[in-house]
């Protein structure tokens, strides 16, 4: 299975984190919140206006904008 950017997942889908792009503006913070290699991340829903996107990582709910999702690579 190839890596895909996280923004390509549809709501309800879960995948595993492969890597955060070194250029990701929230890289350090996201790692601290659990975006480490192998961690399962679920796309919960998109906001009504299309952006941002709600995610679940572990027991944490948070939202990121699509631009910032693109820089997170995941594998199904």
């Amino acid at each position, binding site marked *: 299975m190839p890596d895909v950017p996280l923004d390509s997942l549809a709501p309800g889908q879960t995948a595993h984190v492969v890597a955060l792009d070194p250029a990701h503006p929230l*890289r*350090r913070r996201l790692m601290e919140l659990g975006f480490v*290699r192998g961690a399962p991340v679920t796309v919960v829903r998109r906001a009504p206006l299309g952006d941002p996107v709600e995610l679940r990582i572990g027991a*944490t*709910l948070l939202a*990121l904008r699509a631009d910032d999702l693109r820089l997170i690579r995941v594998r199904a």
Partner: protein
Amino acid sequence: MTAPAVTRPPTLIPDEAACADTLARLKAAREPRVVVVGNPNVGKTTLINALAGTNLKVGNWSGVTVEKREAHLNHAGRRVHLLDLPGAYSLSPHTPEELITRTALLDEAPDAVLNVLDAGNLERNLYLTLQLMDYRLPVAVALNLVDEAREKGVQVDSRALSRLLGVPVVETVASRARGTDTVLDSALGHATLGIGVRYPEAIERAVEALSTRMVGVDTLPPHAHRYLALTLLEGDPSVRGRLNATGHAALVQAANAQLLELDTQGLDPLIEIAEARYALAGDIARAAAPQAQARRTVTERLDALALHPWLGIPLFLALVLLVFRLTFTVAAPFVDLIGGPLQDTLTGWASAALSWFPLARDLVTGAIIPGVGTVLSFLPTLLVLYLAMSFLEDSGYMARAAFLMDRAMRSVGLDGRAFIPLILGFGCNVPAVYATRTLERRSDRLLVSMILPFMSCSARLPVYVVFAAALFPRQASLLVWAMYTLGMLVALAFAFVLRRTSYPAEGSGVLLELPPYRFPTAQVLWKHAWRRTASFARRARTTVLATVAGVWLLLAIPAVSGASFATVAPQDSLFGRVSQAMSPIFAPLGFGTWQATGALVPGFIAKEVVVGTLGQIYLGEQAARPAALGLVDGVVQAGRATWDAVVASVSAIPTILALPSLNADATGDLNTPLATALARAFTPASGLSYLVFVLLYTPCIATVGALAQEHGRRFAWTTVAYQLATAWVAAFLVYLIARAVL
């Protein structure tokens, strides 16, 4: 899955013996200092309030505690200092609040760390715990929110957790003060260093090399060595800056060398360290809380509705509308009470008591009581508004509002969280300015504060209403809505421009946290709302008092010969003459008379006095002095009026759900003498231009005070100046267009 116990052995720290000193210190300390550390929103402040009986502010969103706060209590014969710190996800600060937490750990010489955990989110919380344990201070854990975790189907075995971490663990429900009595025993009597993470070999070697360089350096105590070494390897800029500034540049250089070395091996320490911590945190979490099957939580069910693709936004708008209707319907009788009967009674007494000192009597009954009274009459409105807002905040809904509105706010360069202070601005700009504190970036705080005063606060409404009645009786409610919308559009337009000129976005990346819904306790709501209301009342005592007295003085000083102090006609007073001199500025806007100009000046103090001043000037109205009532009569009358207000307020609650209609307010005033006078003095075009000017011209003095307190005087006066300019230009344009069209 039955997870095995921890698979990694605890790390052996080279200077473990030296760290043992910290344990001895905790035992010996006569006034032990305990820092309370944990992720945001896990109940740290609630726990401290329960322990120490203090009254620190709590709330259900991250970042409620934004500065360090100290509570004191006596425990087992010792005086304990409990330090409440802002929540942090890690000790590598990302926000100013997290920096406060990290700095306190390094500088406050704590004797022990009380680490508060969310039992329902163990893995993420343990990441911080493990990082804390690299800082070799005695640690005790309070496993909080066990009630909420149980509801989610998560049962944590606190004994197992204690065994795995090597530190004492106490289960608590801080909001109901359950389990809290043993927390201090645990933190002061049993806190220990616990386990440590073993990082990959290459990292451990680099840590050891750096730690060796710190041995014997006075300013770098042994318990900090491992933490500092790891943080340097993680590339945390703030710790580098700190070490460079305190004469440890060589250490930073050494860390750079180690980083280069690791890089040639293809290792990124940031990733290696985070992964090692999460691996161990995950192992411990799974061993201590064998996951029951995930249950659909209350939060998920509520979010399915609150964040629904079609219903989410309409629901949000309906909720905002409901809050404002609640505010005005329930509080209106009290506003009338304070502004009417109570004030009349007071005025009566004051004029009787001061009848021998006419000047003092005029000052008190003609300026201070009505001026301060007008401002205080807004207290009930604010209290209700704050109660409603606190409910939305503490329940966790405000974070959802930020999520819903983020896309819309992005088009002007802001993010969803900025929406909250703007909404609050419709009620009153002052608390809205303070609400900007929840924004993470300084440039966002400044930008939002600067556009906030364009949001039409409730004090401007009476001006629209009376002008609408005078000049546009048929389109009154349309006009009022147009004013609110115009204010909002101007605010957003300025956000757009200022973002591109003065306040460029700092960094990028927006992360919104969505905390679980919690039902706020009545006690917390009340404390929360009362604190905010009280700070508003304090301002009425100081700023407003001083300014109304000032205006009275200016109106009393004659500017022509022959007239005497306090009996001079308004237009011959200093106030009248100054207004006259200023009025040409407003001639291009269509209202260059001294009367119209004069009413704008006190509006700077409080927008609600514009209407009152217009009345005084246009009608030459000498406020009829209410008859002086006897003490008993006065109390009886005030009591009766208060009761009427309570009844009216309660009976108004059912009407909140009726369709909103701003017309209701407007029709009552249709044929007042003031409306008639205004209809003569203004044309539709100049009236419209006047309203636009009033909407935009300057924040009131209380808002200026709040701006100065938050961002400095210069910022506050800059805001005043640019808003005046904006108001002038906008009113000028409206006048030109309206004159052509109407």
